[in-house]
């Protein structure tokens, strides 16, 4: 169970290395006090959550309890250590439940209007217990609680008159597109000139327009609507990367794409096409 977090994150090597580092550091600190390897491994896992910011939901408390009980039946255990481990488990449970209480913040705010002293412990905790069990069950169960119903997916044929109507609409769309495209090109030209003046003719400004078009083609042909910048250009070639980044900024300015990062400021840059295709 303690490897669950690592298995879940198999696509994120950096996080795995981070965990390994933590384990190393933690084990150096604790190995003097806990001699039984079983106790030590459990202690390590909880310590990761309590002191090293591991996601509390990555600890499977249900498996832990049954495993620990089994172990306790099989051999004599050191009650001091067991007590300490149980206390840590309780703290992890608290952290998991706290998460759920935070989730319900918005709802609770509404209900606080008729809040009385007699209500303090029950309301929120009962609900968060339900929420805790539900979340746990959904995550552990092999099947989701929601099932897609099976309905017909029949489609009707298109009549000739609809094709003619579509042509009429398409003509209007073409006019509109060409007008917007013209404005967009002019604006891009203006920005390129402005940038050229600022950069004093150092960069690839002559090819900027071409670079933007090339990158846009790549984005349009990418099989997904969202992608990372490094998936559409060579990250190792820093010149190429900067060129692609500049084009991305222009495309974002044109509102053709949205760019975002999960980790600021050095994380990967993600691109998402917006309602254009």
């Amino acid at each position, binding site marked *: 169970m303690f490897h669950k977090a690592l298995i879940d994150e198999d696509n994120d090597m950096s996080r795995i290395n981070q965990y390994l580092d933590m384990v190393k550091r933690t084990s150096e600190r604790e190995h003097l006090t806990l001699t039984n390897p079983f106790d030590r491994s459990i202690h390590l896992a909880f310590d990761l959550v309590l002191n090293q910011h591991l996601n509390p939901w990555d600890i499977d408390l249900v498996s832990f309890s049954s495993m620990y009980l089994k172990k306790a039946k099989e051999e004599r255990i050191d009650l001091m250590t067991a007590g300490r481990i149980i206390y840590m488990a309780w703290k992890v449970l608290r952290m998991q439940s706290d998460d759920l209480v935070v989730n319900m913040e918005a709802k609770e705010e509404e209900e606080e209007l008729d809040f009385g002293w007699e209500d303090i412990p029950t309301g929120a905790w009962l609900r968060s217990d339900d929420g805790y069990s539900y979340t746990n069950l959904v995550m552990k169960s092999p099947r989701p609680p929601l099932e*897609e119903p*099976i309905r*017909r997916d029949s489609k009707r044929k298109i009549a000739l008159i609809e094709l003619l109507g579509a042509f009429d609409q398409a003509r209007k769309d073409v006019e509109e597109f060409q007008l917007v495209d013209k404005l967009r090109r002019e604006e891009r030209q203006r920005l390129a000139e402005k940038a050229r003046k600022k950069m004093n003719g150092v960069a690839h400004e002559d090819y900027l327009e071409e670079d933007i078009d090339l990158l846009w083609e790549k984005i349009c042909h990418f099989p997904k609507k969202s992608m990372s910048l490094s998936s559409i250009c060579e990250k190792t070639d820093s010149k190429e990367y900067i060129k692609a980044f500049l084009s991305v900024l222009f495309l974002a300015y044109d509102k053709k794409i949205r760019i975002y990062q999960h980790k600021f400021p050095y994380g990967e840059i993600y691109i998402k096409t917006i309602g254009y295709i």
Partner: protein
Amino acid sequence: MGLREERLVESVLFSASKPVGIGEIKEASGLSKKKVTEALESLIQTYNVERKKETSIEVIKAGDKYTMQVKKKFFDQSVMVAKPEIQSHHLKTLALIAFHQPVKQSNLRRMIGPKVYDHVDELSAMKLINAKKHGTTEMLTTTKLFPEYFGIDTTKPEEIREFLAKKVIGSIEK
């Protein structure tokens, strides 16, 4: 309730391929709102009570709409000819959002990890959830389409929560 009205509404439900509202049925069938409602009640009675053992199809209320679908009992064989659209791990994330809604994306991230971003994008694109800016994170809720899509007979978050809790308990008991 005239037989003709019931047939008209039945043909609309059959051809729609998705849940339809009373307004749409009214427009397509040319019947009054009252007649549509009566026909729907009568169809539910016919399919789900009278013909219960003689058909694999049911007529149900989904959100504020009505739909015709295969009974759960017969899912397994129909799944082979009508492929499901949502992946099972996306369904789990959706089940968490529906239960805890309104829920912050950052809290959901703590439950399921960084895959939350992909899942939220996918579920938003399918119009099953809404993501509204909330400080530095997003606040997630299910849309009106959610109960329609899954054939849940309510649009109230509290009742949706109850429905899901029952489903989870049901799946353990099996």
